[in-house]
């Protein structure tokens, strides 16, 4: 059974909704490929999930009658694998002589141990490519700078609820489902501009129905929310440890997620000694979660679940009544908000660590401030930026100024000039080494003989001719 999201994936670029500008850019680029050399060999399609980036890439291939090859995050993407698959694919066109589009999905997800070297490998693939390459990413700035520089970014935006609703109506029509306009609008608005999730929600609510009403959706949504809040209710206000634990049986959340809900609301409900004891219990539960992560022994989850529910309930002898407004975990939201800052910080720390022979964590906690102070020095700031190879975001972060400020811009540009000068120096040095070699007498002699020989050879062959 094909999911609706797959079944109704657009087959042509005209079917891509709400991103006319991006589609136009894609077409222009594809035309440039057909006519010969395009300005850039690679595009980065970026934007939030579910707005049609992958669909657009696939539709482009089918519209241009190109073959395509796709690599996504579920494949392990070490440098080796990328080179072996995308490398040849991007150089050799297919037997039919058709072009082949190389699609690298989730290109902002290349860090971590497993994809080490992946970004460098992609850069190399792009530089050597004779076939069109498309990278797909959620966060443009999560992609490493050199990679961004080698490509052109094409932005995909979230899709308006009205646009989503009109597509959902069309799907209902072809599935033979009669649907209330309010129901459709509700799904469209809930999706937050994510078309794929809207289609999934529609399918979940409507598959098998003849008629879809607002109640069908509203109830299913309310149920999910009710259950987590019910569990929190019995953890913090229930009668006993047992009832707190039993409330989790109906819950569709893993202990890994549940602990963050409890963690968020513990300080809302408990205070003073209860708070201390509550966190003691929660941190014990967390130890078991850690053991499960390490050993993959899921039977240990039962201890974690009891400690975080019944255990937390038991530390307080007070019975609490009345209404508490429980909150969803702030952690996930903050993680999203701070992702860019963290990734810039990490990449700066990695560069400093490699240069100064220390671990990334040492660089992060001990050297970031120090290097910031060096960068702020008029005398050596640019040299330090150059020797570490810092990009503009990293310089901004370390000096504590915005990337757009004159100071940061100048530091970065001066550093770039120095890097170029050094690259020339490396070539220079290559020449010097050559020169030095010719000066050594044995080699001089060896060269002379070989010169004679080659002359001899040439003459003889001329003569023979």
């Amino acid at each position, binding site marked *: 059974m094909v999911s609706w999201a797959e079944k109704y994936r657009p087959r042509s670029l005209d079917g891509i909704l709400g991103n006319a500008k991006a589609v136009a850019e894609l077409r222009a680029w594809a035309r440039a490929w057909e006519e010969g050399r395009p300005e850039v060999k690679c595009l980065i399609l970026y934007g939030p999930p579910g707005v049609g980036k992958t669909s657009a890439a696939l539709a482009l291939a089918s519209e241009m009658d190109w073959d395509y090859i796709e690599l996504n995050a579920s494949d392990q993407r070490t440098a080796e694998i990328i080179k072996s698959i995308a490398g040849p694919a991007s150089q050799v066109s297919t037997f039919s002589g058709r072009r082949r589009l190389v699609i690298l999905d989730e290109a902002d997800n290349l860090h971590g141990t497993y994809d080490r070297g992946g970004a460098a490998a992609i850069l190399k693939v792009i530089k050597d490519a004779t076939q069109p390459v498309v990278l797909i990413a959620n966060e443009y700035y999560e992609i490493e700078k050199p990679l961004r520089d080698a490509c052109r970014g094409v932005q995909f935006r979230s899709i308006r609820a009205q646009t989503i609703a009109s597509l959902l109506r069309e799907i209902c029509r072809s599935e033979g489902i009669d649907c209330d306009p309010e129901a459709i609008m509700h799904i469209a608005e809930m999706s937050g501009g994510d078309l794929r999730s809207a289609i999934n929600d529609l399918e979940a609510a409507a598959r098998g129905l003849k008629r879809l009403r607002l109640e069908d959706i509203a109830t299913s949504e309310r149920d999910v929310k009710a259950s987590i809040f019910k569990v929190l209710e019995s953890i913090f206000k229930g009668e006993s440890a047992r009832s707190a634990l039993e409330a989790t049986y109906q819950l569709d959340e893993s202990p890994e997620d549940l602990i963050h809900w409890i963690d968020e609301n513990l300080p809302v409900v408990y205070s003073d000694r209860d708070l201390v004891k509550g966190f003691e219990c929660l941190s014990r539960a967390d130890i078991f979660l850690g053991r499960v992560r390490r050993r993959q022994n899921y039977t240990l989850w039962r201890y974690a679940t009891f400690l975080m529910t019944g255990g937390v309930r038991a530390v307080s002898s007070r019975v609490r009544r009345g209404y508490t407004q429980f909150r969803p975990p702030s952690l996930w939201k903050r993680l999203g908000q701070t992702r860019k800052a963290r990734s810039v910080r990490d990449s700066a720390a990695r560069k400093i660590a490699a240069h100064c022979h220390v*671990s990334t964590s040492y660089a992060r906690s001990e050297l970031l401030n120090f290097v910031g102070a060096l960068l702020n020095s008029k005398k050596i700031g640019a040299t330090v930026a150059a020797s570490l190879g810092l990009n503009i975001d990293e310089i901004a972060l370390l000096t504590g100024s915005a990337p757009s400020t004159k100071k940061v811009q100048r530091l970065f540009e001066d550093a770039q000039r120095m890097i170029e000068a050094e690259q020339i120096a490396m070539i220079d040095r290559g020449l010097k080494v050559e020169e030095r070699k010719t000066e050594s007498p044995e080699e001089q002699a060896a060269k002379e003989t070989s010169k004679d020989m080659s002359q001899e050879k040439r003459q003889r062959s001329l003569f023979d001719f």
Partner: protein
Amino acid sequence: MNPTTLHAHSEGILIYRSGESVLGGVPIKEEIWIEKYRPTSLDEIVGQPEIVRRLKSYVATRNLPHLLFSGPPGVGKTAAAISIVREIFGENWRDNFIELNASDERGIDVVRTKVKDFARMAPLGGAEFKVIFLDEADALTSDAQSALRRTMERYSATCRFILSCNYSSKIIEPIQSRCAVYRFRALTPEAIEKRIRYIAEQEGVEVTEDGIEAINYVARGDMRKAINALQAAALISDKVDMNTVYQITSMARPEQIRNLIKLAISGDFAGARSELDDLLLVQGLSGQDVVVQIHREMLDLDVPDADKARMINRIGEIDFRITEGANERIQLEALIAYMALTGLSKSTAT
């Protein structure tokens, strides 16, 4: 190509300096003093005379057993590893040398892939063997160490390991028994003074007597810290004295950690947690970084000694739990909540 690797070939720069520029290129100068003054030969390593003498005998025979360097940070372990490799392999030492930091790549996969890949390739340029320098090897999980043990054995014909660690007790026995173990000691104030004076002279910086004392106090036997303190102080003034040194060290001491502790002890859990989230999520410190910094602040804290002992006991417990794979945010929250006990017991007493 990465510019940092380019300019790290300092021999290249030497060759270059001996002649004139052909194309007008200029190599990037090293301005970070811990690297500018990193020893390039064993003779330059200060404060470890016995170890240096033994290491030199390896250079003389051009052979090397597996080595294990243990000792506190900043006493010359990395410098010794790099120097010995440079002296044995000469100009092209980088061809047969790889440096990995185990605390960045703690898992068994590193041993299975990176280490093994490098180990099984034949040495280049007619060298007898190649050298893998595994820094902070005590950060490797015990599984990874066991895997390493087999790798060390299997490729011992073509590959030597230099492991460095803070505590040799964290290295499993079978690995220790395969290595010659060298214990580096914290540097004496005299050894640090000698090097600091040398660098100051090269850089045209004046350092007063009490400036040296202050640097020694801050560094506590760690040369890296000492040199960083000197350079940071020299940024403020050409004359480095006690005041300039303390000025920069108070700057380096994170205000935020102190604030977090203050809020936690006063019972403002929400305030302390918001500082914690900023450290973990915005600044990207690891949980362990935060634990270490909280611990560092503990001694100077204005609370009764009994409370200090209690809190340090708990900090140690949290540190251990995080090492064992617990969630750092939840554990640190528990620590923050626990710190409030001091304030609580005070209020119940009065």
